[in-house]
């Protein structure tokens, strides 16, 4: 069920390339970046396998909620290997523009390779940028829509990231943020925990990435609930915020309008 979008790294490991210990929380942004870079080669395949392809549906829903349309300028934050960016590219067409933005160069290189392999003419409207989601290199009111798939949970300063999204959005435009749902229902939390322990981690172990995914459960536990995400968006200044539970409640999508 779970897609492998969530990875945390230990805080005190002096060697950013070493595997994190399960006993140490992953706190440092550099470590998170290194972790995502380590999994870049297997990211797409494992996402498909572990979610049984469902992540594709959730991502289409996220793009639909963003209200991106032909000719728009749109931003996909924490784009990873580019799934959402490619969907946005099809939606905005050759008159539009897509920026795929991530802090992992390795993930961006995978995205760029996919762009060149896929050969669709509209994908030429995508540009990849390496950067920090809390310090966006765009002017105010630049974008008609923003998407963020399985990224907000991995950003250390979520308030700052929301503020930056608000700043670069055009008034009246929306941000669509897809991620795991931190549910208040014990049944959902149990299902998520069981899947992580008994499916995600064993599969990841086969790729030598067991420790990277062992933090998934705590990552979701440390995330915000749907109500808390709505509150964060409203406090940031968005005029409207609504969190939708999808995938049977294990996933959630926040839609906020500037």
């Amino acid at each position: 069920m779970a897609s492998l979008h969530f990875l945390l790294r230990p805080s005190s490991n002096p060697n950013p390339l070493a595997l994190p210990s399960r006993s140490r929380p992953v706190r440092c942004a550099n470590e998170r970046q290194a972790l995502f870079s380590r999994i870049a080669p297997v990211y797409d395949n494992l996402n498909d396998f572990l979610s049984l392809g469902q992540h594709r549906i959730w991502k289409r829903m996220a793009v639909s909620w963003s209200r991106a349309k032909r000719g728009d300028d749109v931003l996909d934050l924490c784009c990873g290997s580019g799934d959402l960016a490619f969907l946005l590219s099809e939606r905005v067409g050759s008159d539009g523009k897509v920026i795929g933005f991530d802090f992992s160069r390795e993930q961006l290189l995978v995205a760029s390779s996919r762009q060149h392999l896929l050969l669709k003419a509209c994908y030429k409207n995508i540009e990849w940028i390496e950067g920090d989601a809390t310090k966006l290199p765009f002017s105010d009111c630049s974008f008609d829509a923003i998407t963020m798939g399985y990224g907000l949970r991995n950003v250390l300063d979520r308030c700052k990231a929301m503020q930056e999204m608000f700043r670069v959005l055009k008034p009246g435009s929306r941000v669509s943020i897809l991620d795991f749902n931190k549910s208040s229902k014990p049944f959902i939390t149990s299902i998520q925990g069981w899947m992580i322990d008994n499916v995600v981690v064993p599969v990841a172990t086969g790729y030598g990435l067991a420790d990277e995914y062992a933090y998934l459960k705590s990552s979701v536990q440390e995330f915000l609930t749907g109500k808390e995400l709505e509150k964060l968006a409203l406090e940031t200044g968005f005029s409207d915020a609504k969190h939708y539970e999808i995938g049977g409640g294990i996933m959630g999508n926040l839609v906020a309008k500037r």
Partner: protein
Amino acid sequence: MVRVSRVLLRDARVGINKTLSEILVCPLSKQPLRVCEESGSLISDAIGVSYPVVDGIPSLVPKDGKILATDDIEKPDSDVALDSANKEYPSGTL
């Protein structure tokens, strides 16, 4: 209004297209960036920092920015550069 398809001109030496270089700003100062063909980078004259472009992908990560020597900076407004620099990194480092 008729929408005109955008023609993206790629600067082969820097590897960044013209439209992209026009929409990007410095992540710290939020001021415009200048393409430097000689170094293959994007320059923030406001704070005297250079960001690399590698394999056509701009790296606008603040901690990877390189502080430039004074001679390499074009100065449109020295007060803005000082204010921005002092606010973001008073010690002179990124």
